[in-house]
């Protein structure tokens, strides 16, 4: 984009002053090369979000922002229910509560190297991934509802993990306020065989090792040392979340005019928080969050078994689990006054600073871990929430690299087989059921995750703690 479209407030803060129907300014966090490379649609979409009723302070876009659905991917916006504020299905996205969890393994890279092929094969065999894959759990109606109410807590009660896992999961693994009656029979049916599956697209499970530490103090509190091996899991709420998103997008688009909401783009479909449809979505979306938390918990369990079958001394403990497609009720200080707001993060990660009560007590002094997944074969990062990000972006940071090229272009440019060989030559084992899927997820089809993370760090959205390099990647 032309930088002349913005007023530049610092090296990483670009503002669009309210004009036309905008109620608040729009703010993009990025360095100059990132904003120059950013799709013009981000400008359009973040401007549209700034027009929605009840929006507070500003509409934000993170450094990895790209063209999304109504909201840009990498979008953050908070709404006040007492000022006619809205909730938007598009502002959460189809993959409700998609997120990342990172596990310590207690292993060294040498221990993985000695059994690398066996590790890759065991993970690939045990964790269902790709199109049409089913999990080993079939949920009947009663259990489905229990899962939707209990999230990862339900999974742990059924033997898929430990209490320690829950202590390191957002919301302690269970999102309050889930309403199973608001989740359609279709959404439940779509999910009944999908628990404990990775899905496809950009979802993955990766064995990684720590190649650089930027902040020793925080890394110590997080329990991360140079050369540690960790495992990161990126996935969401599967068919259930997709179906909830699909259904509410339509219902909200149809109901918008009834609520007197003029949508600049139909994809921005939303409803007042204080309306029957707004409340209905909230209950369903929270059930979707629980589905994603339970799903990542079950995958954790499967990963423990798979790894133990190859390296019995592996001990997987959870560093943290954080989502990047949500709407959450949070208290934020606006002009010196605390206000209860509905914060949408679509492709943006919550990043609470040190001392925030929602951060697990063992990590609280360091701030919340912010887990950033890279593209296949590139780096991932662990960041920490900062005090300043509260004022910058309602305590939010980026979520990943963000695509730089469409799937269509990627498919034309690369061959899955060649890519796997190239990555293999660099010591990265890829396991995938689809060669075409591998080509579409080619590392170079994404932005440089390091540039995105540097911009987030520089803007004060989150602080860089450690860099992770991949060793084994199971692609969804």
């Amino acid at each position, binding site marked *: 984009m032309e930088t002349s479209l913005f007023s530049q407030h610092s090296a990483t803060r670009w503002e669009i002053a309210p004009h036309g129907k905008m109620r608040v300014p729009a703010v993009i966090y990025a360095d100059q090369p990132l904003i120059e490379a950013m799709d013009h*649609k981000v400008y359009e979409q973040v401007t549209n979000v700034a027009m929605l009723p009840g929006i507070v302070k500003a509409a934000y876009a993170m450094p990895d922002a790209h063209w999304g*659905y109504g909201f840009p991917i990498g979008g953050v916006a908070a709404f006040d229910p007492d000022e006619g504020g809205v909730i938007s299905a598009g502002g959460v996205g189809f993959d409700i509560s998609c997120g990342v969890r990172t596990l310590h393994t207690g292993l060294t890279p040498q221990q993985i190297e000695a059994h690398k092929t066996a590790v890759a094969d065991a993970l690939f065999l045990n964790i269902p991934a790709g199109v049409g894959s089913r999990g080993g759990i079939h949920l009947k109606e009663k259990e489905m509802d229990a899962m939707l109410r209990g999230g990862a807590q339900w999974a742990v009660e059924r033997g898929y993990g430990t209490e320690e896992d829950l202590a390191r999961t957002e919301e302690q693994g269970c999102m309050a306020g889930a309403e199973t009656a608001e989740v359609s029979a279709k959404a439940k049916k779509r999910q009944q065989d999908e628990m404990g599956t990775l899905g496809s*697209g950009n979802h993955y499970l990766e064995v990684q090792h720590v190649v650089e530490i930027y902040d020793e103090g925080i890394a110590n509190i997080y329990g991360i040392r140079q050369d540690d091996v960790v495992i990161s899991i990126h996935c969401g709420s599967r068919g259930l979340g*997709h179906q909830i998103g699909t259904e509410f997008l339509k219902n909200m688009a149809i109901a918008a005019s009834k609520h007197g909401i003029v949508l600049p783009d139909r*994809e921005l479909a939303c409803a007042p928080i204080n309306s029957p449809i707004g409340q209905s979505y909230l209950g369903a979306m929270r059930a979707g969050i629980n589905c994603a938390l339970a799903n990542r918990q079950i995958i954790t369990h499967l990963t423990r078994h798979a790894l133990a079958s190859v390296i019995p001394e592996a001990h997987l403990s959870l560093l943290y689990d954080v989502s990047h497609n949500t709407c959450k009720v949070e208290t934020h200080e606006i002009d010196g006054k605390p206000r209860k707001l509905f914060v949408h993060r679509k492709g943006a990660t919550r990043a609470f600073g040190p001392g925030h009560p929602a951060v697990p007590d063992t990590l609280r002094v360091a701030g919340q871990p912010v887990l950033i997944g890279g593209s296949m074969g590139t780096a991932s990062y662990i960041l920490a929430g900062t005090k300043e990000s509260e004022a910058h972006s309602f305590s939010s940071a980026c979520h990943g690299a963000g695509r730089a090229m469409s*799937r*269509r272009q990627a498919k034309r440019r690369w061959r899955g087989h060649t890519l796997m060989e190239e990555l293999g030559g660099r010591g990265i084992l890829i396991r995938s059921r689809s060669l075409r899927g591998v080509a579409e997820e080619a590392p170079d089809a994404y932005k440089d995750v390091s540039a995105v993370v540097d911009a987030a760090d520089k803007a004060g959205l989150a602080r860089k703690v450690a860099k992770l390099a991949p060793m084994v990647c199971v692609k969804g």
Partner: protein
Amino acid sequence: MPHAHWEHFEHKADIGVKGSGNTLPEAFEQTAVAMVAVITDPLGVAEQESVEVDCQAPDLELLLVDWLNALIYEMAVRRMVFGRFEVKLDGTQLHGVAWGEHVNREKHDPAVEIKGATYTELKVAQDTQGIWQAQCVVDV
């Protein structure tokens, strides 16, 4: 002159699907073929089973999204891929039939699952030559 045709168009994160035809039902059928082509080669799908869907929406654009989402749902819960479609329209009421088979990883090499059809770049219209076009972006 036959104008039934499908294509893909660019979207940064995902992919756009577009169908054209002499009639509106034909354009809807072709958009569905374009959507299947995101997952696998539609010509490689055998017609072993048929599934019927019914949709209703306030306008043609929302109806297109409903139609595609109904197919996404049926493919997901039946673990199927479809290769051919037949659409009948009565105003904004749609009755559709999809022919296909169970997903076979070796045969179909399915690239991605589709999460949903979206309202992004959503258009249903007749061009100046009278050809119907129906398109939107699908989230994968």
